[in-house]
């Protein structure tokens, strides 16, 4: 009972930290907006107050920074979640959301639309990326189906998919893109939260929320994978079904997020490890912890990447790597000291 109360307390504390992070992050930027003004703007838009604010500040906060911070939070949540699931399911501490080749597929889809004009403008860059991501994942599933099954098969199929679609992307960029297009695609490939709008927020937040709930129902089964699929099966887990189910969920989640914000690296790789070090191995704890850590982490890294080289924005994926790698190294050293 005490343990459960403590868990609830931690979860509430995490959400409060996340809300405060978003609140503070939107004050940061080339045009400083005070925290009080941010509060007033939010209250106005939520219909809780009618406080006079400057139209310019209102536009900056409500139309630019807030949607951006919320998409950042959704991306951190979703990518962290996919990282946890895939690391446990595939029993590989190096697995991340992109291990299935989804991001490479997305980039291929994006360059086909952006550079070659496939789809004739009917689908945008994001639509192309989403379709490409699903195609790459379909390729992985097919390859797994008709090759050696099991965990190793999935990872190898993911490697093949990643290489294939990366090569296709490079081919299109090399053969057909001019330098402007190349730069645009590169920026997007590294992960970028430029120009997020409220419909991006709606899509990413709702997809991620559903993903978190669905994955929490699989927490027990994921615990059982610790000693491999045979042990999981002997513990009553329907291995083939749960694996397919979780692979599809993580692929859809990753495809959605990549199509909105590009392939933001390191969040999905590093944060699950941090969550495990803090809270142990049980997925009923690790999943919520990763989700909150991921959201807070991304909000701050995004704020930093907007501010540090202002007015030139840094692709947020560069920021996550620059922060994520040292954090990862610290975790490794701590692990060694403890063992």
């Amino acid at each position: 009972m005490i343990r459960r109360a403590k868990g609830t307390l931690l979860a509430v504390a995490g959400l409060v930290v996340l809300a405060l992070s978003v609140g503070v992050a939107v004050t940061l930027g080339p045009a400083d907006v005070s925290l009080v003004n941010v509060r007033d703007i939010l209250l106005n838009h939520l219909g809780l107050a009618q406080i006079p604010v400057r139209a310019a500040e209102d536009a900056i906060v409500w139309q630019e920074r807030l949607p951006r911070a919320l998409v950042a939070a959704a991306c951190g949540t979703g990518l962290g979640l996919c990282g946890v699931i895939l690391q446990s399911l595939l029993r590989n501490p190096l697995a991340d959301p992109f291990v299935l080749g989804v991001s490479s597929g997305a980039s291929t889809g994006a360059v086909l639309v952006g550079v070659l004009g496939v789809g004739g403008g009917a689908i945008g860059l994001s639509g192309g990326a989403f379709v490409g991501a699903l195609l790459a994942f379909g390729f992985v599933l097919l390859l797994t189906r008709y090759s050696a099954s099991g965990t190793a098969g999935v990872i190898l199929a993911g490697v093949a998919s990643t290489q294939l679609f990366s090569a296709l992307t490079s081919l299109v960029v090399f053969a057909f893109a001019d330098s402007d297009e190349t730069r645009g695609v590169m920026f997007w490939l590294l992960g970028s939260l430029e120009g997020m709008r409220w419909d991006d927020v709606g899509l990413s937040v709702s997809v991620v929320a559903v993903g978190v709930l669905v994955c929490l129902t699989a927490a027990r089964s994921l615990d059982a994978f610790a000693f491999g699929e045979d042990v999981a099966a002997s513990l009553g887990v329907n291995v083939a079904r749960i694996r397919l189910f979780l692979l599809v969920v993580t692929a859809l989640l990753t495809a959605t997020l990549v199509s909105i914000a590009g392939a933001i690296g390191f969040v999905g790789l590093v944060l699950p490890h941090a969550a495990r070090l803090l809270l142990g191995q049980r997925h009923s704890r690790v999943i919520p912890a990763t989700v909150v850590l991921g959201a807070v982490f991304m909000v701050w890294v995004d704020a930093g990447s907007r501010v540090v080289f202002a007015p030139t924005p840094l692709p947020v994926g560069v920021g996550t790597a620059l922060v994520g790698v040292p954090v990862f190294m610290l975790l490794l050293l701590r692990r060694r000291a403890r063992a």
Partner: protein
Amino acid sequence: MTLNADRVSWRRGGRLVVDGVSLHPRPGSTVGLLGPNGSGKSSLLRLLQGVASPDSGAVTLDGADLAGLRRREVARAVATVTQQAETEADMLVADVVRLGRTPHRSIFGGDSAEDARAIAGALEHVGLTAKADHLWHTLSGGERQRAHIARALAQEPRELLLDEPTNHLDIRHQIELLTLVHELPVTTIVALHDLNLAVTFCDDVLVLREGRAVAAGSPHEVLTAELIADVYGVRARLIRDPVTDRSHVLFEPSFR
């Protein structure tokens, strides 16, 4: 009524790895599966576990075909310990044993008093209570196998399947482990390489060769020099220990 196999056959990669084998263990007994590498011991255990389905014949649990039961239902009655299942995760011994409660829990329910009791009991049974809060990778090989047995006991099974559980263990740990297994109040089916361990700890044995059952019964009756020569291709003599009156298998080297 327990776990039975009725003339099960299983074709794997074009090869018949289990060929018409039947197994009807007496409740509470310890049954040894013997036979050389590739004789189908592990394959038969996979069929008995229900993680693979036979091409013909049936494995039944209390008379119901395993193929028609949910994994969870099977796991509440049948637990398995394989050789050397390992993990990369930093798990506590108690967490490993807790995994055994998986088939007994609902999706969101927390640990019940029932779970806590089963986990404590299982740890006690294998003598690892003092190590409950130790990290998995600090355990020795023998302790890890005992922890796996505790994990299986936490499942509260009626049947325990063990696939060469003594591999890689030193002689003391082999004997400790099999003594523990022998004394468990469950029906145990254990694949073994060591014939003398089989003679010492098994009530019955089933000898397999190329997927087929070639002999079954009490180890003293089944294990003869002829059978060992026939199945394993080695010359052996059986002698009776005058102290315990148990058979012992002595192998003769084939020096030339």
